[in-house]
């Protein structure tokens, strides 16, 4: 029996060593690049030493909020640009490449405008998550002059809200619930659900936070736990996806069910309502899409019908604008997916340049500066 105990302690020791070693190995792993496609990478942008683009990360969002406050104190107009991975990923990333948000800021600077663009984006962000991104600012009374929303058709099939984003927002106020409509109710429900399953505001939470930070500074590799988790999931999902696509050989047209379209579009209208009630203008755009010959990645009719409906509704609204940017980025500036199929969501630096300039061109015309 004593031998049994030694085996267990030896096993624990080995497990810790394996974990520490593996965590150190994967320290440089970038999970955000997974799923972006061949040669497509995430880029982080800074302006005046401040972060201007962030993912669903509490610390990053806090950093952007600080910059927001700084800009306000210096009488800048602010456009909050929300969207999915197209905004933060660059195909064939090279030194000196910039994101659309950086090009938009450059363009605004060149025309001596006191308008600054700040961007929050998340891979496959659905419109409920985009609503949460807006709430991160609105709940802190950081009200932008403009809210720019990229409506990615493919992401309308995504549901649920990333917990990291939910952690960035507070409980939805009764006022917001009253004015915000169905979309805000979904966010409120998800937030309630999350707060029920965690240890919010208990002594245990404080102890856990303390122990976690202690382990981060004293246990080699512990701070990379998140990366280890992502690496394992990437290996698991990556190998599965690869083998499934090999078996199927053909690309399936992603089906976007009606109820999910509605679920996400309601969130968009909630965002519009709240932004307008806070005195912001809203720009909703149809994002760039490559014009490859051959079949369109989605059901073309449904795709067009969705945006037509969106456009006609927006045209009847005050202070809300619609922009069709589908064809602005030429095909040669788009990338490829890992399976060799064309990447319909991410483009190269030039694509970002075109998009950034186009958005700022619109703002120069419509923004009351």
């Amino acid at each position, binding site marked *: 029996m004593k031998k049994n105990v030694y*085996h267990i302690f030896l*096993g624990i020791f080995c497990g*810790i060593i394996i974990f520490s070693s593996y965590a150190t190995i994967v320290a440089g792993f970038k999970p955000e690049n997974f799923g972006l496609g061949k040669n497509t990478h995430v880029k982080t942008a800074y302006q005046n030493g401040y972060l201007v683009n962030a993912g669903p990360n509490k610390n990053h969002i806090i950093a952007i909020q600080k910059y927001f406050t700084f800009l306000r104190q210096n009488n800048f107009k602010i456009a909050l640009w929300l969207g999915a991975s197209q905004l933060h990923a660059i195909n064939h990333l090279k030194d000196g490449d910039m994101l659309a948000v950086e090009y938009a800021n450059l363009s605004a600077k060149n025309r001596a405008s006191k308008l600054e663009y700040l961007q929050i984006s998340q891979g496959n962000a659905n419109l409920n998550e985009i609503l949460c991104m807006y709430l991160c600012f609105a709940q802190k009374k950081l009200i932008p002059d403009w809210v720019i929303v990229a409506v990615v058709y493919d992401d309308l099939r995504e549901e649920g809200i990333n917990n990291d984003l939910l952690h960035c927002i507070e409980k939805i106020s009764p006022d917001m619930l009253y004015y915000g409509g169905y979309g805000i109710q979904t966010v409120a429900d998800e937030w309630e659900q999350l707060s029920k399953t965690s240890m919010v505001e208990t002594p245990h939470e404080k102890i856990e936070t303390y122990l976690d930070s202690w382990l981060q500074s004293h246990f080699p590799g512990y701070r990379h*736990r998140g990366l280890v988790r992502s690496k394992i999931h990437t290996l698991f999902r990556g190998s599965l996806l690869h083998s499934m696509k090999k078996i199927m050989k053909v690309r399936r047209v992603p089906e976007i069910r009606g109820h999910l379209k509605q679920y996400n579009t309601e969130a968009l209208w909630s965002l519009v309502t709240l932004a307008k009630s806070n005195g912001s203008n809203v720009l909703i755009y149809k994002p760039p899409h490559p014009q490859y010959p051959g079949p369109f990645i989605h059901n073309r009719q449904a795709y067009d019908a969705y945006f037509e409906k969106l456009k006609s509704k927006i045209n009847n609204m005050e202070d809300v604008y619609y922009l069709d940017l589908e064809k602005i980025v030429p095909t040669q500036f788009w990338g490829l997916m890992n399976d060799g199929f064309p990447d319909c969501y991410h483009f190269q630096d030039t694509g970002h340049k075109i998009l950034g300039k186009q958005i700022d061109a619109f703002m120069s015309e419509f923004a009351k500066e």
Partner: protein
Amino acid sequence: MLFNSWGYIFFLFIGFSLHWLLPHQFRIILLSAFSFIFYAMWRWDFCLLMIFSACVDFIAARQINAGDQIKIKKFWLWLSISINVGLLIFFKYSYFLYDNIQMIGSLANFKLPDLGFYIILPLGISFYTFQTISYTIDVYRAEIKPTNNFLAFLTYVTFWPQLVAGPILRANQVIPQLLKRRKFDTSDLGIGIERVLIGLFKKVVLADNIAFWVDKSFALDPVPFTAFDVWVSAILFGFQIYFDFSGYSDIAIGSARILGIKFPENFNWPYFSTSPADFWRRWHISLSSWLRDYIYIPTITFLGSKNPSYGAIDQKNRLRNISLMWVFFICGLWHGAGWTFIVWGLMHGLLIFLYRRIKSLQLINKEKPLISWCVTFCFVMLAWIPFRSSSLAQTYILFSKILNPLQYTISNREVNGYCYIITLAVFSGMAISYYLNSIDNQTIVFQKLFPYTKILKVACMVFAVLVYLRPIRQFIYFQF
């Protein structure tokens, strides 16, 4: 405090160290104090409720024992049961009762006034209430002598490893062990640590990761589901709840063992049962035996005593069946204040009833356990549908898919493909573990080839637990 946290590992380490450093007479004080600290990590004010509940039963049990008339004994017994059940009803079922009265009232255009207050469900109330009730009943039945040591009794009620989600222990299983002079034993330490590790692995690696897919599936609109989607969602939830709850029980058993206290097993490979009755002998054993001893058998006895023709076989079977449905109604209601839980309970009651009928007709071939297992597995998994559904309407839609042969189509799959793969992978893993566990360890060839299997197993579990340990999700049974 959640077991699946660094806080708990630290807490257990301190508790373990102090427990074995202190002399015997102080250990019970330490265990009691640590149990209250454990509970106060959630809310300290509800500790008072536990103390009140313990006081009621301690006094009642002593009065029952001291009483020389059956009338007095009965009075104290019913006082104790009424207070305990009353507290449980108030904290757990007020909203459920209110909503149902409201619903019935609305049919007659009658509207109840608002409750006017907000009730918080005290963590573990269903577990410690059943535990204290069993103590008073056991004393009333003269199966045990009441303890004179209030601290020992309080520690039995509040002992942290089993406080919030069981196992539901009997006083004679714990109090003598608490009072006994325990000696430190390295084998207990080894077994305890291994059990805690297994429990953490089940919870943070398996249950929490499966939960992500289960939540996604059950959040979808069920209307476009195929029958296969429903099956996969139900089976996946079955795995989630098993790993979640048996993981909790493993940590509870392991934590107690480290302190030199042995808890009975709460699970025994329930998904390899060969009949519905067998399932309940293997799933949440402490609850099923509690229900048998304190509800099922007393109900049969009570109904029998009210019925002069009790002796007739048919009548006896009828009483058994009534008791069966009653006990499973209670079982469902105990799990949650909602009709979906009651449906789940009654489904199990019905399954056992049907099983008994089929068995009595000698339609079951005991030499073909694979068929019996397959049928039991399918029914048990299907029964999880109401348990996990958010409403009876969702349950109805999901069941209508299962019962419609036209819904058995492989195209138009709605549930994510990963769910299918994970279900297959988890089931294969469980089947292999069950097989390895069911044969004698010494005869396993690979164990002879690799004498250090245990080191490898523990190392893998430690690695996985280090990667996934986060108190992101409480145990499912905490809400009960």
